């Protein structure tokens, strides 16, 4: 899959920009704050309908703008397709795919498959479990776009159920309607549990391979630690639903007493270990950086295998803290045949082996295309 060109309108710092990526490898080079990161962010937004840097869409709008638009020209197996996504601070945002508007914005998911690395991604390794859950869910959406709706539904059911429990905290009887919210939570939650288990199974071996290829020392392991007991065998959503219902039954008293939702995938962990040590607490910043890169490359490999097609790699500033030998190895670890767009403040950071073309990004323009 190739991202042929990207167009940004009122996105972050950019009033209007069109940039083409005619080569398999592209380096966007420019000083910090020149807007090169937002170009990758916009591409990732088309692939995931989310930003990896901001949880609120309004942060993506250019100052004073009510909406932004990102257009992507994507080609796959000789077919070219244009995807257009609108971003609004409030109200209903539209989207178009292949010239026709789609009923829901999420219908564009799957048109562009990608993975993104940026310095913020070190949080996946060294941050809270929430960052790892988010990373797993993002990969889930790349593999199965319908999970975009599943995780939204889960968030919604969780908020509703938690509000009900909070208002009834300490009451002797369960609040009216609790069973209905249990089912709403189980309905989306069991899908998420099954999906994450599948994602972890696909990601673990490929992240370990990417880690070794990028020159990492020791053994990198990724293991799913769900909040509900793992059903036997290759469990599907139905088995996870049973496990979740049983656990809800066991924790009913605690939930009522504390007025909180204590059961479900919002309390999952995706454990990342290095030679058996928890990477969150036992990795240095530099190690955390390289582990995050390996996770992103591992996720890309999992996508490539599922679709027999390489996703687009969006790598924001991947080389900076690495020594020249590590930079070489990292560039060498990028899969052959995959499109990669990297950014760097200093062109000297980009190893020879990366190859490809360089686009200079200055305030308000992109040169050298």
């Amino acid at each position, binding site marked *: 899959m190739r991202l042929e060109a990207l167009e940004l309108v009122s996105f972050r710092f950019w009033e209007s920009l069109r940039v083409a990526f005619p080569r398999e490898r592209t380096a966007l080079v420019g000083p910090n704050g020149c807007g090169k990161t937002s170009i990758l962010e916009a591409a990732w937004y088309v692939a995931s309908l989310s930003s990896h840097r901001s949880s609120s869409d309004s942060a993506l709008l250019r100052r004073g703008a009510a909406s932004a638009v990102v257009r992507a020209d994507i080609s796959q197996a000789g077919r070219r397709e244009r995807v257009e996504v609108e971003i609004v601070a409030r109200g209903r945002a539209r989207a178009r795919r292949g010239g026709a508007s789609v009923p829901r914005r999420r219908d564009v998911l799957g048109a562009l498959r990608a993975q993104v690395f940026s310095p913020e991604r070190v949080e996946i390794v060294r941050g809270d479990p929430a960052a790892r859950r988010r990373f797993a869910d993002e990969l889930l959406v790349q593999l199965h776009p319908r999970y975009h709706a599943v995780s939204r*539904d889960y968030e*919604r*059911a969780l908020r509703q159920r938690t*509000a009900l429990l909070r208002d009834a905290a300490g009451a002797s009887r369960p609040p*009216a*309607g609790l*069973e*209905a919210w249990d089912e709403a939570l189980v309905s989306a939650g069991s899908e998420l549990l099954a999906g994450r288990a599948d994602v972890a199974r696909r990601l673990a071996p490929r992240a370990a391979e990417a880690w070794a290829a990028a020159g990492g020392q020791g053994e990198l392991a990724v293991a799913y630690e769900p909040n509900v007991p793992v059903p036997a065998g290759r469990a599907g959503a139905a088995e996870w639903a049973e496990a979740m219902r049983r656990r809800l039954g066991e924790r009913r008293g605690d939930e009522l007493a504390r007025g909180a939702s204590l059961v479900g995938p919002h309390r999952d962990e995706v454990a990342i270990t290095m030679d058996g040590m928890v990477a969150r607490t036992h990795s240095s910043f530099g190690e955390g950086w390289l582990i995050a890169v390996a996770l992103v490359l591992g996720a890309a490999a999992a996508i490539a295998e599922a679709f027999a097609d390489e996703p687009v790699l969006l790598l924001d500033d991947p080389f900076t803290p690495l020594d020249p030998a590590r930079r070489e190895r990292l560039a060498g670890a990028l899969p052959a045949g995959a499109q990669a767009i990297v950014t760097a403040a200093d062109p000297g950071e980009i190893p020879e082996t990366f190859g490809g073309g360089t686009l200079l990004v200055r305030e308000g323009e992109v040169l050298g295309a």
Partner: protein
Amino acid sequence: MFEGPVQDLIEALRRLPGIGQKSAQRLAFHLLKAPADEARALAESILAAKERVAICRECFNVAEGERCRYCLDARRDPALVCVVEEPADIIAVERTQEFRGRYHVLGGHISPIDGVGPDDLRIRELLARVERGELKEVIVATNPTVEGEATAIYLANLLKPLGARVTRIASGIPVGGDLEYADEVTLGRALEGRREI
């Protein structure tokens, strides 16, 4: 800020759903520029609707008398009832021309975040209709959102012990959508493919 009657009008318009400050101003100035009869006709139709339109005692749809046109229509099957969130959803179901029963309007969905519990909806009244033995099948056609689904499950848990057959429209409508916006073919298929909860 404007003064006097203009500001009053803008503020009254702003209280309408989906109208912000800018739209309210635009509407207010549109009305001020319009001929006097046009403004009077609008005001009168609002008043007439308020005076003449009531809520159906049976199903809580909007009605021009004590009962709505569907509850008055003797050709409609009184043993089959379709439960919807809002009166507008009835229009969507009617468009399919697939349904020949009666309705029950809940007046929303359960939503703890907004402080809406089962007692805030017309659920007790639905229970009473089932208890009177009038209904053989209750089709729950709440919106296919998280809240609509939870409301459907709540109703099923409540109604099934009373011996009623409770069904849910099939999930043909994309989840997260409103019935109101579903096209009639999709909604018709969802009605036809309904399943017992």
